[in-house]
């Protein structure tokens, strides 16, 4: 027997092993090669016939044969075991024990986000009652005595002459009455208007109000702080645009547009091709408001802004009807979880 024959035998054995499809068959193969009556003892029995000079090479070949077959058997056995599951194997694809999706309401998420953004530049949260006095909701906010918004048509009054606040701005008044300047507050809350419900109106909605009063506060501060806010809440590098407007409690007053978050200002369906989205009303606190709360309008200045959270949610999430936000359909709410 020559060493080449042993090498040939090694290849045959390895091929046979690789073709084995069960552990039992592997055992048969093992016995036929390495068993007491198998090929290996047969080879070893031929050793005596080998010329002495070739004996070391022959021995080495026999050894390699044994090693190769043993290793092939081992590998094939492992490979077969991998494909056949043990009795206590788990179905790792089953659903986990708690598969329920919970989540905060989109309005809540936005409210928390707005507060967090202003929290970072030193704003404190302030709150106030939903049931307000005429003084806090209108008078102190410089609303003329016969302003239409005071009508029973537009405002919910209670028997005792108080009202459901029509805006979160009375929180400004309450806060300034209780705290000397400087003031930096962010005030979330519900506001109420006597609107007939439709796709863009509900009897109550959420607002967030901001107020910053100090020495030398200017419209440049308003623009700066809102630009920071726009970049955080909508889109990086957002810009802010002011349009002149009128509110009784600020002078000058502006409407504030942010760069459209969808097209980044290029113009698209969401922003009606303008590149801008109207987000809030703002302005410099009117001196009459300062006077009403006992601040000296010559000593301080300030800005205020207010935004409707439903409106922002509708823009951000492309919600078609404000009433969906109050309908509480789980299929709707889960989309924002």
């Amino acid at each position, binding site marked *: 027997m020559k060493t080449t024959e042993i090498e040939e035998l090694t290849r045959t054995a390895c091929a046979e092993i690789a073709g084995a499809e069960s552990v039992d068959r592997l055992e048969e193969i093992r016995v036929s090669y390495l068993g007491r009556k198998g090929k290996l003892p047969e080879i070893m029995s031929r050793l005596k016939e080998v010329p002495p000079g070739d004996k070391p090479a022959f021995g080495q070949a026999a050894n390699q044969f044994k090693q190769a077959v043993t290793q092939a058997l081992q590998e094939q056995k492992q490979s077969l075991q991998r494909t056949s599951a043990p009795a206590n194997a788990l179905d790792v694809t*089953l*659903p986990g*024990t*708690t598969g*329920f*999706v*919970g989540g*905060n*309401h989109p309005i*809540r998420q936005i409210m*928390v986000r707005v507060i967090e953004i202003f929290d*970072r530049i*030193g*704003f*404190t*949260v*302030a*709150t106030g*009652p*939903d*049931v307000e006095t005429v003084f806090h909701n209108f008078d102190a906010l410089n609303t003329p005595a*016969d302003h239409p918004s005071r*009508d*029973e048509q537009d405002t919910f*009054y*209670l*028997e*005792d002459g108080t009202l*459901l606040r029509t805006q979160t701005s009375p929180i400004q008044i309450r806060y300034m009455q209780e705290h000397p300047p*400087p003031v*930096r*507050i962010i005030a979330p809350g519900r506001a109420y208007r006597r609107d*007939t419900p439709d796709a863009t109106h509900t*009897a*109550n909605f959420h607002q967030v109000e901001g107020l910053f009063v100090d020495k030398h506060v*200017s*419209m*440049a*501060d308003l*623009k*700066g*702080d809102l*630009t920071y806010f726009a970049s955080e809440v909508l889109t990086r590098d957002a810009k*802010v*645009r002011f*349009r*002149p*407007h*009128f509110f009784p409690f600020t*002078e*000058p*007053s*502006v*409407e504030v547009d942010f760069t459209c978050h969808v097209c980044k200002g290029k113009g698209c369906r969401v922003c009606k091709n303008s590149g801008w989205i109207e987000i809030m009303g703002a302005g410099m606190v009117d*001196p009459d408001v300062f006077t009403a709360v006992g601040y000296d309008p010559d000593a301080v200045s300030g800005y205020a802004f207010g935004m409707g959270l439903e409106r922002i949610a509708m823009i951000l999430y492309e919600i078609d009807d404000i009433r969906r936000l*109050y309908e*509480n*359909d789980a299929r709707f*709410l*889960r989309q924002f979880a």
Partner: protein
Amino acid sequence: MKVPLSWLQDYIDLPDSISELCDLLTFSGLEVEGVETVGSDYEGIRVAEITAVRRHPDADKLTLCTIDFGEEESLEVVCGAPNVRVGMKTIYAPVGSRLPNGMKLKKAKIRGVVSLGMLCAEDELGLSERHEGIMDLPGDPAPGTPAVEVLGQPETVFDLEITPNRPDCLGMIGVARELSALTDRPLRLPECPLPDSEEAPPPSVDLQDSTGCPRYTARTIDGVTVGPSPDWMQKRLRLSGVRPINNLVDITNYVMLESGQPLHAFDRDLLRGDRIVVRRAAPGESFTTLDDRVHDLTDKDVVIADAEGAVALAGVMGGANSEIQPGTSRLLLESACFDPATVRATSKRLDLHTESSYRFARGCDPTASEQVSRRAASLILAHAGGTLSAPVADVYPDPKPPVELECSWEKVTGLIGLDIPVASMKNYFHRLGLDLISESDTGCRLVVPGHRLDLTRPVDLVEEVARLHGLDRIPVRSPQARIVHGAKDVELRVEKRIWSHLADRGFLETLTYSLTSPELLDRLDPQSKGQRVHLPNPISQDQSVLRSSLIPQLVETLSFNRSRQLETLAVFEAGKVFRMGKAGGVEETISIALGLMGTTRRPVLQQQTPLGDQEAFLNLKGELEWIFQRLGCEQDITLTPSEDPAFAPGQGAEIRLRNTVCGRMGLICAAERERGKFNGPIAVGELDLQPLFPEPGALVRMQPIPDQPAVTRDVALLVDMSCRHQDVLDVIAQQRPADLEQVSLFDLFTGEKLGGNRKSMAYRFTYRNAKKTLTDKAVEKMHRRVEDRLMSELPAEIVGRG
């Protein structure tokens, strides 16, 4: 307000670009809400003459019109208009042409007859909303004439939002004046030369209420002829949304739209006593406005009266008794200034809202009344004929002095946040018509023109400078973060933690309206009756009371979702609830409510096993305990059975914090279960959050961790069905050994084997001494005493030990 571009161009030369104009207007504060093109170039559409008309064979309301439209061959179109007649000149849109609304005409079969194109009404040509009949063209245009030649070039109309502070912009000239200031282009005001009037005493005007009417002017014109106003005027009125009536009425409307100040024309022959009295109405005075509505007036209303009675509601509407008639030949033209608040109040109380009341309610410039009257008179003389029968009567008892404002350069630039050169500011003021009367290093003194009723305080000048300089030039100043002390947001931080904790526990947060229906509260929060806050002027009964609890709407939410085939749902809402306080006034409290439907708390693979009442209750209780733990008050909470009828009998509980009620929970009653079509128990609970908030600054103190081993004893007690877990704990507490560290229930069993009225409760007792290792014997001694007490006091039978 609708503003046709061509009308503006009478007063100012404007840039060609429409979008540039829109930006100019919007950034000056006159927001362009829309731009409309009225009409089109009408390509392919032309004049046609109807040469024959016959009935449609199969439709009563349709006719077949043969038309000549300038081609060799005539053709036939089907028409539905009632006004067709032979010889009529109208507008024909042939097959293949496109209407202004984008519709392309195709050959169509209408009730079996082929129609080649259509004859058009005004709405189809984008000229107005009118669709009473097809256009009946005046004059004699030749068939085939392109439509654009008879209908005119398309018109651009801006729709402007005029803020309430700018009544001066409620007219074309006001808008043009703004554009003139913005672009620094000259303004051309209409010239209104009037011939000398006849020598006669001016009309008699008795102004009795100069508060309600600071200025009243009256001009009399005799010999006018009522007829249609010129086409150009009618077209402008239509473009502005005003319906043409006759030359006299149209001219007053035209001048109102031009100047922003309303006017009124009376038939002078109908004015009894030939005099005008401006006075407060007598209480109970009755008056019929020209829309034929009868009003009861009060002394809050100002009327224009003749010698016998009211002939107009000042600034709101004229009277039926003195309006212009087709045969009117002598007229009295009123141009006056009325008090905004009075007009607003009258208009609101009588629910009478007109173009006139809208403008006067926002304020008008008394210095302009006479000029406006001149303008109207000159147009009347030009388009209705007649002569000025007397000089104007102009009653202006207390001429309003011009407003003077002090402007501080530093204040203006300081508030804007930008250094604007003084020369620029002066230029802006000049362009706005503010006359500089004196100047110093620090500022100047300005006279405000009469039409700028909104400029009353120095701060009002800031916006003028800012918008003329350009709001886009205001720099973006980086946030100047600075801490303001006195933050009171601890509560919000705690709430935020609960909101996000519940979301993580699989609860969906809901939001419901603060306003709800009393009937719903009666069902699910009956105990609040008598303390609820009702609205006297609700929009609907469904939203007529402020919610006193979050549970009712939470149950509605569960039911809403159940009806959309959901089997399981966990929801919560956090928000305010409202009750009348004991001392009067409304008390607002922050509440949180949780609701569970179905087996949401079970592992996924056990969802289909039906949910028992006890399990449903404990699921929700467990969730509330999470919250108590988060708030650090779990030791102070107890639940006691409650009789709340919202819950099923024996399945509701009051939640107490150190003996003060702070909430309720339970399984909703059978009636509610049925109403909501629920197919299993529904557990809901609500907490008043404020009392649960941790003390501000409360800190945890570390407790030593025991290093001695614990010894446990398990005991299964067979007790009466009515025995509660708390009863067991109470008995143990009566004589609790010092080394008994913990008692915990680990099994509860009821079953046939035990008989229907008994149950088995298994407890584990954990003993430990902080200082020494307890011996078995010592534990046995303590434990025996506990067991004995349980057996005698509960009573209980011990059926197993471990």
